[in-house]
């Protein structure tokens, strides 16, 4: 056990930092939150810069155009880019972290040759069409139908919570191809071009009143059978293969933001006065900040442990569930503490005056989504209880 970075890891960091210092001054300012076309262009332009510098698909194998970096190098990459406020993965999220790795593991050479370079260069934006109105936590109960008609599937049904659904070129799509089989056995995984006739993405405003995700309706959408990845009715396994690509780095950028916010909150508390004292004079607040920042240090260590385990064995295992439970709980408490600290300034998502409070309000709202998306807190607790502690399975 040695938590210091090796010489090779530090060399990787130095080269990366030199490049970032070189290019970041030339990155244009981030577009407004609701300027979706602008944000897509901004995210994909950054992806192209990464590609040209050899950092695209940092964790992808070299034979598919990635950098083949180790999980630790990936951690360093996320750490340094976030510290310097480089653009985040944004619109490239599903392509780089989800659909791409699935294609690498399961697609035909032809499918790979067409899609992988386009993802790496930021040319194709992907979305994920998994959840449905009737299938959330119980994803395998999904009902969107794909019926075979010659060389094509005809798709009918709807998806929901599809992030970037109105801005994407392709969708990694789960459909029911055998309604009579047990629920996990009748699902197929399709590459769906989003410009096919019959696809209707309708933005669904989030509680921030932003249009980050969509409901997507499918009305007799015809897609070639050749767009299937993996065997027919084997889509559930294909999906699970993707999940096993996680290397413990999923929330690194996130967490660095929370660390920065916690430090900023302490600074803010020292500047806000009421009733003749600063917020920082309140021992209760100081203790809350102390606990949050200590927990963040511990979660940084847990991230390192998960990454280290992934580097050794290729799998994070249940360490990822433990991390997400602890982290989302922390985010909720950080959000609440920030609100108590900025009090009336918490009534606006935009900055009021000079204090820069808007981001705390937005981040608090973001925290509410994180305990739901990608496996709710309750589902995660079931997993920890069943897979780690060996308690009886639900149902």
């Amino acid at each position, binding site marked *: *056990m040695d938590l210091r970075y090796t010489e090779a*890891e530090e060399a990787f960091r130095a080269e990366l930092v030199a490049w970032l210092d070189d290019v970041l001054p030339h990155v244009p300012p981030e577009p407004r939150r609701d300027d979706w076309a602008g944000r897509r262009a901004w995210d994909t332009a950054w992806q192209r810069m990464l590609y040209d510098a050899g950092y695209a698909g940092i964790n992808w194998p070299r034979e598919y155009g990635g950098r083949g970096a180790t999980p630790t190098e990936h951690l360093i990459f996320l750490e340094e880019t976030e510290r310097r406020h480089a653009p985040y993965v944004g619109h490239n999220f599903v392509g780089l972290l989800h659909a791409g790795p699935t294609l690498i593991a399961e697609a035909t050479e032809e499918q790979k040759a067409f899609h992988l370079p386009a993802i790496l260069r930021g040319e194709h934006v992907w979305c994920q069409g998994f959840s449905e109105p009737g299938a959330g936590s119980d994803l395998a109960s999904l009902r969107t139908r794909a019926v075979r008609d010659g060389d094509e599937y005809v798709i009918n049904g709807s998806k929901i919570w599809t992030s970037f659904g109105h801005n994407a070129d392709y969708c990694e799509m789960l459909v029911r191809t055998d309604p009579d089989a047990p629920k996990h056995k009748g699902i197929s995984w399709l590459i769906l071009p989003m410009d096919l006739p019959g696809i209707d993405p309708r933005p669904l405003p989030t509680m921030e009143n932003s249009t980050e995700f969509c409901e997507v309706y499918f009305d007799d959408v015809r897609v070639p059978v050749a767009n299937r990845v993996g065997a027919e009715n084997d889509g559930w396994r294909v999906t699970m293969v993707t999940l096993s690509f996680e290397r413990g780095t999923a929330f690194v950028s996130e967490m660095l933001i929370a660390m920065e916010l916690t430090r900023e909150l302490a600074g803010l508390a020292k500047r806000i006065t009421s009733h003749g004292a600063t917020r920082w004079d309140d021992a209760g607040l100081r203790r809350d900040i*102390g606990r949050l920042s*200590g927990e963040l240090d511990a979660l940084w260590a847990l991230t390192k442990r998960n990454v280290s385990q992934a580097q050794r064995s290729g799998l994070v295992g249940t360490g990822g569930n*433990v991390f997400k439970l602890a982290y989302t709980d922390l985010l909720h408490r950080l959000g609440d503490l920030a609100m108590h600290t900025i009090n009336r300034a918490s009534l606006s998502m935009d900055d009021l005056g000079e204090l820069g409070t808007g981001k705390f309000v937005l981040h608090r709202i973001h925290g509410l989504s994180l305990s739901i998306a990608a496996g709710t807190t309750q589902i995660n607790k079931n997993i920890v209880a069943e897979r*780690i502690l060996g*308690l009886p399975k639900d149902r």
Partner: protein
Amino acid sequence: MDFDLDDDDLAIQAGIRSFCAGRFPIEVVRRGELTDSVVDTDRWREIAEMGVFAIGGDGLTRRQAALAFEELGRALVPGPLVDTALAAQVSAAAAAGDLIAVLLHEPDPVAVVEFPAQARAVLRLADDGVHLAEGVTLDATSVERPLDALTPVGLLRTPPPAGDLVGGADVAARMTVDALVLTAAQQVGLAAGATELATAYAKERQQFGRVIGAFQAVKHLLADMLVKAEVARVAVHAAACAADGAGDGDPLHLARVAKMLAGDAALFCGKTGIQVHGGMGFTWEVDAQRYWKRACVLDTHLANGDRLAELVAAAG
């Protein structure tokens, strides 16, 4: 960067675990509750022979010591283990297991000492350095009903002798880090032990025709316990690594974080473990209460969770 335990680490962990299972099974530990001398001096020497008090130099690394102390915590081994391990760095008798040493805590709000009848050395970590008084008998009024029946306490009548200055400020600073890390390791052991005990009970106790561990309300309590214990454990390992000079961050800061989180985890798991046991959890017979009580004792050591939180916040 690697967070993996090596073969030596795993061997030490397994060695102490089987030592505890063999020499400190829970029936033996509980027996101390009925005697004047909670610490069995023969077994105390055996602990020393296992190398647990030999930390640094040719002995255990801090990381290995943390693994060992987690096992001692899990097994509820009684005695001033951390205090004696600190004293062992400056006293041959303590290192050999011939001397039971206690660390003097600030009177807050009263001057309480632990193991007053059996302690024969007093250690003090002060600004100017480490003070050790060997071969002393404490002048304290023993308490009839200590909170933890395995941690007898007394109220000091007169301050113990100041003793000799056996190490400078740097040694005191290093020992403070060691004390925080090793206590935190013991607290992680308590949190894990309480979680394991409650999980086992949840798999066997039946109500409404099923084991209680099948109810989500119970499952989620146990999952909460595991998450708290696990996060605290990585904090302890990160702090121990920093104390070994192989870490990422300031050793004192990480040690404080470790004890804060491990203390909170031990208290939470101790209390929740009692809840999972229902009425049985409130009995003397079931060990759930023993984990919680020891957690309460260790939380007061050096600085409690709230005080540590303030120190961590002040460090920015």
